[in-house]
């Protein structure tokens, strides 16, 4: 939690007023984190209510047919997971355990949810980070080109590309990419994080690429990277479309501003105007969309992981949801909720760093 607060700090020390500005920032942070904590409790409540108010039967979903017919087994099962107690009591117990960092035990894998998340999250992060970095680079570039060349061929072509990108059903595109690139052309492996013959690197961060590099296993590294290619490609295409469209409209809006015309009129080179004046101002709305795109990416990964047998958060969420595994679902909801709120916070703080006009008062 303290990591994001470190980022805006470097903006102030240059000025003598730095001492005074850090104080309101701190207060702002405390207030934001307080609101975030409340929202996270809200997220758990929503998940809890949604998964409990509905007719689905957890017992039937997790026990086999024969076991579910035996009242003794069912009773023992319900007692083990505390399902025999009133709902408010169940919820309060969950919150109490949460304060101790205990997310409960998955009713489906029979392991602590935290352990499950610990192995699923790095797998998803590995594709999500690659996809978001790639799509920001490509999307912001494409969008800027489209805006600058407005009405020209490049603009029309990029518009077509981005519209097709956001219209692609990710799950279908993943299947096609798998079939063509992996199955037919054998350019990249299509399922899992590593080839069956490769043993996973020692668990340091959980990111196979980083772990294999840290332990100097070059072959494992190459294998992990090869397995990353297809899922990352598929996820990237979707967010590229989104980011291209938004960068284009954000840049267009700035291009119409008077100060851009002034900068041109006083004879600054086009590149300077674009980088120092236009892109800097356009970066604020773009950042918001990057935050949102990361969320879209986490949604996309649910469908993509199914195709590529990727043992990540999406697969875990799918299994937990389809087995009505409440602790599992709550764990995923919590994790994703926290990520969302953190991204929003970082984005808001970065605003201040990029655009002095919106600095926290």
């Amino acid at each position, binding site marked *: 939690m303290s990591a994001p607060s470190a980022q805006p700090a470097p903006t102030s020390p240059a000025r003598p007023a730095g001492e005074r500005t850090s104080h309101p920032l701190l207060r702002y942070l405390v207030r934001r984190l307080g609101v975030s904590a409340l*929202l996270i409790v*809200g*997220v758990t409540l*929503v*998940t809890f209510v*949604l*998964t409990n108010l*509905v*007719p*689905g039967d957890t017992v039937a979903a997790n026990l086999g047919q024969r076991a579910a017919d035996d009242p003794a087994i069912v009773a023992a099962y319900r007692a083990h997971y505390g399902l025999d107690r009133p709902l408010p009591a169940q919820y309060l117990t969950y919150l109490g355990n949460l304060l101790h960092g205990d997310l409960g035990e998955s009713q489906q894998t029979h392991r602590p949810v935290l352990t499950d998340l610990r192995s699923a999250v790095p797998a998803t992060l590995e594709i999500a980070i690659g996809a978001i970095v790639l799509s920001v680079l490509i999307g912001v570039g494409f969008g800027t080109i489209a805006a600058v060349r407005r009405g020209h061929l490049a603009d029309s072509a990029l*518009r*077509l590309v981005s*519209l*097709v990108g*956001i*219209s*692609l*059903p*990710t*799950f*279908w*595109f993943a*299947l*096609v990419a798998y*079939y063509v690139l992996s*199955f037919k052309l054998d350019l990249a492996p299509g399922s899992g994080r590593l080839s069956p013959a490769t043993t996973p690197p020692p668990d340091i961060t959980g990111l196979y690429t980083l772990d294999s590099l840290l332990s100097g296993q070059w072959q494992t590294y190459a294998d992990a990277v090869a397995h990353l290619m297809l899922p990352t490609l598929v996820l990237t295409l979707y967010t590229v479309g*989104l980011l291209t*469209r*938004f960068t284009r*409209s954000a840049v267009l*809006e700035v291009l119409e501003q008077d100060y851009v015309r002034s900068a041109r009129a006083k004879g600054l080179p086009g590149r300077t105007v674009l980088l120092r004046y236009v892109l800097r101002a356009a970066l604020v709305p773009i950042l*918001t*969309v990057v935050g*949102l*795109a990361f*969320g*879209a990416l*986490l*949604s*996309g990964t*649910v*469908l993509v992981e*199914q*195709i590529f047998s990727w043992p990540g958060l*999406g697969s875990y*969420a*799918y299994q937990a*949801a*389809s087995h*009505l595994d409440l602790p599992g*679902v709550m764990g*995923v*909801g919590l994790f*994703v*909720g926290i990520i*969302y*709120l953190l991204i929003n916070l970082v984005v808001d703080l970065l605003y201040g760093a990029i655009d002095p006009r919106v600095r926290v008062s």
Partner: protein
Amino acid sequence: MTVTAVDSGGLRARFRTRIPRAWRTPLGITGAVVAALWILIAVLGPLLWPHNPLGQDFPRLQAPSGAHWFGTDELGRDVLSRVLAGARVTVPLALLLVGLSVVIGGILGLAAGFFGRWVDETVMRLTDLVMAFPTVILAMVVAASLGASLVNAVLAALVVSWPAYARVTRGLVVGIRGAEYVLADRLLGFSAMRSLRMDIVPMVTGPVLILASLDIGTATLLLSGLSFLGLGAKPPTAEWGSMVGTAIAHFDAWWMGVFPGLAILTLVMAFNFLGDALRDALDPHTAGVLGQAETR
């Protein structure tokens, strides 16, 4: 405040006069034609199907040929007929989903923007909560707990879809509720309800409907995604998403998955092309508001 009111008034005028021009862009025309084709296919239904989409009448897993343009599936059903029949499932459900989201989100957004205070706070915090989840994960949880069926998939998608409309509607209402003509009517003795109906709703309808038209593609993707996961349409229903899902298990028979996917792609693309053309023809400010809601 007056400025916003004038802007929205201008928007309504543009809404009427500019639509024809919007359709004259190549993308807009393509979108309109393809969307109209899919709607026609959905309406005509059985008249167009070469074979019974549920009939297991042919040899299994036949590659595309003159007799079966899109091949046959793992149960010997004609894929072309199933793809055409799928339009009858997806098109109406996507429209229904968007329609319901507009109504629910619109009403909540109207209330939040017009009454403010605790109503506003409650509704906006609710939208925050829903938007803190990635759409597919939340919809998946709801669909799984309701049980797999198409109706439940629509309900689940509804849970994640309404907040965008609530936010946009609220934003528009906040922009005009202080306008002089609204205040004047209130001073004349209009009740809150009458003011809402006469002054607010007509100003908000246009932009929200445009957002809705932009959203049909997203709705289609969400619904077919849920069916792909096995949380929507149940076999033997000919639904595009679930057809792609079945195709995973029959990897060699590429035609089983490729054609239903192309159907989703063309339908979503058509609506996105249309929406894009529509948005371009509109007031850039409103377009910005709508665009922000779209990325949720």
